């Protein structure tokens, strides 16, 4: 039996591009990239990063988006279309679970950014004798408040996703991404005009070519290029499934998405490090940089209220657009698999994520553990699974000929197939082995337990999908075309 359900499409090219770049620009671009760049040889790191971006992220994103547009299905539906209704569909379920787990703790980070955006709005950072470290410690130690902010974050995500692809995700991204850009540009202009700010730019851009010969530099660049662009997590596949048959993918879904995402990282370098150095703050990354060091610097700046508001609202927008994209992967898949309404799918997936996220909101160690497992092995494994599916199961050559170059603003040559089939999967395997090797000695318990969970999860998901009775094949139609 074939059931046909109508499938939404992006309302405009600009809307899709903003949504997809918004999905990729998250906390990592703002609180990680400036520090990683400076710590790994500045210009030398950037060269390694550009190379890897073009060699891996751009072709990978093209493939993932193209597969999504071809199948017009979410994760599990795409795997079913590729592998047939058998246990290998469980591989799609594995990636879906990684997304849900990732979102369960990313929601806490969105909650932190909402909390700080609220404090920026009420002018907390510009109060006299105000201590940002004390605020962060009090917030981190308040379990109820953290669970509350996680709940607020999930309520926001739920509310936006209920409005759908065009009315919710696209409409939001069309406003939030330009506002984020303007906010970061304004802060950057203010930052580089501060006395001593040039030292921050010197720290970030000064090239130390010796770093190009260091393995750590390339690994840091690889990590940033992969995790920042969200390659292989199912986000590009899901967003691509809402594209029209003749929409371009190589230029928009590939080059613009990867380079646009990194452009926000560059903007963050200009916005963050001049301020950090102008105020004599030790360069760092993560929550300490955003919520302690920068909050403190904004409080000491002339017009600090405005700069803090722009920064923390922008930071919140970046996190929210990413959270929406991660959650949408589950929503699209659940809707198709259960053949249910979008409202029910949104409420179910967001409810599950909210429940699973409570332990991470209550305990930072749980958040750290999940990030360790998902970041070190879960996401590289997802990318590996998706690239094997594209390159070998679907056939990279057929995908390029049939879908990727259709309606394309840029012709993709045959070398792309080699990248998808050999290069990316090999690199992903290498990353997982390297992380295993380095972490086994340092954190054996975390490493072994994480690997045990992953090792059990794959056959379990395959068993679940194998046991599932054959569901009605859901064909999707848009504008008179069906697949």
């Amino acid at each position, binding site marked *: 039996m074939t059931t046909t359900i109508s499938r939404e499409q992006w309302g405009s*090219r600009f809307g899709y591009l903003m949504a997809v770049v918004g999905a990729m620009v998250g906390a990592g671009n703002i609180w990680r990239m400036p520090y990683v760049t400076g710590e790994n040889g*500045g210009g030398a790191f950037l060269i390694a990063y550009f190379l890897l971006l073009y060699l891996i992220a751009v072709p990978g994103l093209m493939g993932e988006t193209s597969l999504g547009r071809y199948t017009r299905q979410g994760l599990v539906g795409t795997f079913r279309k590729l592998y047939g209704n058998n246990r290998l569909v469980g591989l799609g379920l594995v990636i879906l679970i990684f997304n849900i787990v990732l979102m369960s703790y990313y929601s806490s980070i969105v909650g932190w950014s909402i909390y700080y955006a609220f404090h920026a709005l009420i002018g907390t950072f510009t109060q006299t004798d105000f201590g940002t470290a004390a605020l962060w410690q009090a917030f981190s130690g308040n379990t109820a408040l953290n669970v509350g902010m996680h709940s607020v974050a999930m309520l926001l995500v739920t509310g936006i996703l209920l409005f759908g692809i065009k009315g919710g995700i696209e409409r939001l991204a069309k406003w939030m991404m330009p506002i984020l850009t303007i906010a970061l540009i304004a802060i950057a202009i203010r930052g580089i005009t501060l006395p001593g700010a040039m030292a921050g730019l010197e720290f970030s851009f*000064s090239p130390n070519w010796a770093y190009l010969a260091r393995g750590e530099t390339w690994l840091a660049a690889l990590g940033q290029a992969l995790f920042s662009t969200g390659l292989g997590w199912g986000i590009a596949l899901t967003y691509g499934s809402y594209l029209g048959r003749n929409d371009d993918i190589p230029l928009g879904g590939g080059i*613009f998405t990867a380079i646009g995402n990194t452009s926000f990282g560059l903007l963050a370098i200009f916005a963050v490090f001049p301020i950090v150095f102008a105020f004599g703050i030790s360069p760092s990354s993560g929550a300490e940089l955003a919520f302690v060091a920068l909050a403190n610097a904004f409080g000491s700046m002339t017009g600090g209220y405005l700069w803090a508001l722009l920064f923390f609202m922008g930071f919140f927008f970046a996190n929210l657009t990413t959270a929406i994209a991660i959650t949408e992967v589950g929503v699209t898949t659940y809707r198709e698999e259960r053949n249910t309404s979008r409202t029910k799918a949104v409420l179910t997936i967001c409810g599950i994520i909210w429940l699973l996220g409570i332990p991470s909101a209550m305990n930072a160690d749980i958040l750290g553990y999940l990030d360790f497992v998902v970041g070190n092995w879960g996401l590289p494994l997802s990318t590996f699974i998706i690239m094997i599916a594209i390159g070998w199961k679907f056939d990279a050559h057929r995908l390029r000929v049939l879908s990727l*170059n259709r309606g394309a603003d840029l012709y993709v040559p045959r070398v792309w197939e080699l990248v998808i089939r050999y290069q990316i999967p090999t690199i992903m395997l290498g990353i997982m082995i390297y992380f295993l090797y380095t972490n086994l000695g340092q954190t054996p318990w975390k490493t072994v337990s994480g690997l045990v969970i992953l090792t059990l999860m794959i056959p379990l998901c395959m068993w679940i999908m194998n046991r599932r009775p054959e569901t009605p094949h859901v064909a999707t139609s848009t504008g008179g075309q069906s697949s």
Partner: protein
Amino acid sequence: MSPSAIVVMITSIIALWGVAGGALIVSMRREERKLALLHSQGDFEPYSPRAFRDLERWLLQHPDSEHAPEIREWQQAQRQSLQHNPQCFYDWSSATDIREAP
């Protein structure tokens, strides 16, 4: 700032903001052209000359593949679009042989 840091900074700006901005502008303009063609003639050819050559080559190499009917269907749609539409989306000036093929 040191001269080398300035060079890296400017190169990064061009390589990132320049490429991203350029890609955004080109992508938007091409989309406008697609929409104009859809509005004036209902459709346009989905494959560029090079992409269409790949499609035809695939069919020559895999005539009996289970996927051949699907690709043949798309090849036919492209041919019909080229024959019936007065305006093309892609530049066919150097590929008139393919365009005029039956």
